[in-house]
């Protein structure tokens, strides 16, 4: 494949990463959102592999493989199991204001583009344009944690923020040092496992799925608030 084809392929994959973020935010059910997250992880891994191929950075192949294993297979599988265990697979959580959320998400994308403009102007890397996309993915993950009250969905938002950070590192500076990357990867792993244990414990107790109910003591009734 010629360099130009790979370049345009990277751009397309980056745009699809952004689309996966939008899908995660707007899906009502958890399982499709987890699938979108898995696809996002796989896309980020492929982008990393392609950047490794064009920039001749063999270390990035390792990162790509790690990303694929962790974020496209392992963490989605863990979350999947969690959702099935908590019997949330058929649970739907309608967004309060679906259109408003999407408009807000688009505004965040434009904001991150505007924010990144000066950096893009000074950078020489051929993948510098992806920086805005990765910042947008981070902000969209944050937005997802704000608008969704489902605990598992908030974890998804957190994980997809990490996807965005990783994409930014890969596209702007040809990847982080391997030690840092391994550290972050295992942090995310541990976070996923901890979230899993935490939710399972809480789930035994009863009403967990809605985070909005967690800021209320058991003793208080609905009328007391």
């Amino acid at each position: 494949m010629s360099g130009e084809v790979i370049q345009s392929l990277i751009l397309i994959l980056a745009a699809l990463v952004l689309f996966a973020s939008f899908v995660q935010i707007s899906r009502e059910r958890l399982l499709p959102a987890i699938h979108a997250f898995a696809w996002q992880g796989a896309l980020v891994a492929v982008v990393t592999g392609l950047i490794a191929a064009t920039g001749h950075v063999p270390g990035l192949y390792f990162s790509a493989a790690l990303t694929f294993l962790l974020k496209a297979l392992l963490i989605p599988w863990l979350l999947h199991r969690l959702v099935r265990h908590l019997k949330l697979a058929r649970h739907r959580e309608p967004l309060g204001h679906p259109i408003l959320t999407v408009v807000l998400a688009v505004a965040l994308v434009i904001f991150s583009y505007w924010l990144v403009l000066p950096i893009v102007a000074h950078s020489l890397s051929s993948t510098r344009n992806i920086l805005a996309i990765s910042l947008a993915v981070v902000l969209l993950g944050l937005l997802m944690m704000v608008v969704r009250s489902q605990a598992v969905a908030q974890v998804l938002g957190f994980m997809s923020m990490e996807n965005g950070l990783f994409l930014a590192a890969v596209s702007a500076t040809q990847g982080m040092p391997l030690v840092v990357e391994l550290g972050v990867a295992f942090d995310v792993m541990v976070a996923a496992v901890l979230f899993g244990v935490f939710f399972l414990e809480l789930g035994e107790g009863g009403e967990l799925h809605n985070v909005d109910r967690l800021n209320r003591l058991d003793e208080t009734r609905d009328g007391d608030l």
Partner: protein
Amino acid sequence: MNTAGIAFSVLQGLAYVLLAPLLLGWVGKVKATLQNRRGAGVLQPARNVYKLLGKETRVAHTASPLFRITPYVVFVATLLAAAIVPLLATNLPSAAVADIIVVAGLLGLARFFLALAGMDVGTAFGGMGASREMMVSSFAEPALLMAVFTLAWSAHSTNLAGIIDHQLSDARLLPSMLFALASLVLVAVAETGRIPVDNPSTHLELTMIHEAMILEYSGRHLALLEWAAQIRLMLYGALIANIFFPWGIATRPSLLALAMGMAAIVGKLLILGAGLALSETVAAKMRFFKTPIFLSLAFLLALIGLLSHVILESGG
């Protein structure tokens, strides 16, 4: 050159009029084959139109003159819109007079009259169909225009011939094109009244949109309205085929190039029609109130296409 160009434009308009029933017949035939039926022949929609043209035309006595002129307005507006969309060749005078926003406007005019006529007789179904059609189009048109803006931004022209020439000269795989294509396909499915938005082959009263509006028509009026719907399907097919896969279209007005363009567009429409039949076989019609979700997905895709053009491609 100029008289030849005009002649070719007329030829292209005729091609739309004559090939549109065949395209619908092809879709029906493929669909029947996929569902293990023998199905009617490819010529069946053309035969239907021919038969209806010879039948007596009855008009309800509560109908106003608007009801009578609507079939002609709809047919002429759709045909005019189709003549603007390049089918066989790009540099024709008919494409130069107007751009794609005019196409959207003409289709909107046809839809406006159809909805008025649906309400004109005063039956419940007509009004219901009209209100549904207006709801679908109010969601579909922004998505269509957003996809058009994405294309126009990269081609620096809203003229269809200009966009196709740009695609021919500078064919690259771009994210914005991909998203615009996906969005335009969804809009086309909604605007031509196919599954999952509307079911063209049923008169089941609770699900129909287009059929509900033309329920009171008969004879040549009905023939013209059905023919216009077929032309609209072909218009969207040609739009998608020639904007995103423009290879083979004639760029010079010569007979040989035109024959090549004809073969190319027939091949492309056969593939698109088979794809439509396949998607209609695997998908079920969705609830009407799910339609806004379907079309806001189309809008979102077009918007991401526009954003990715700005973010990813302009600085490049």
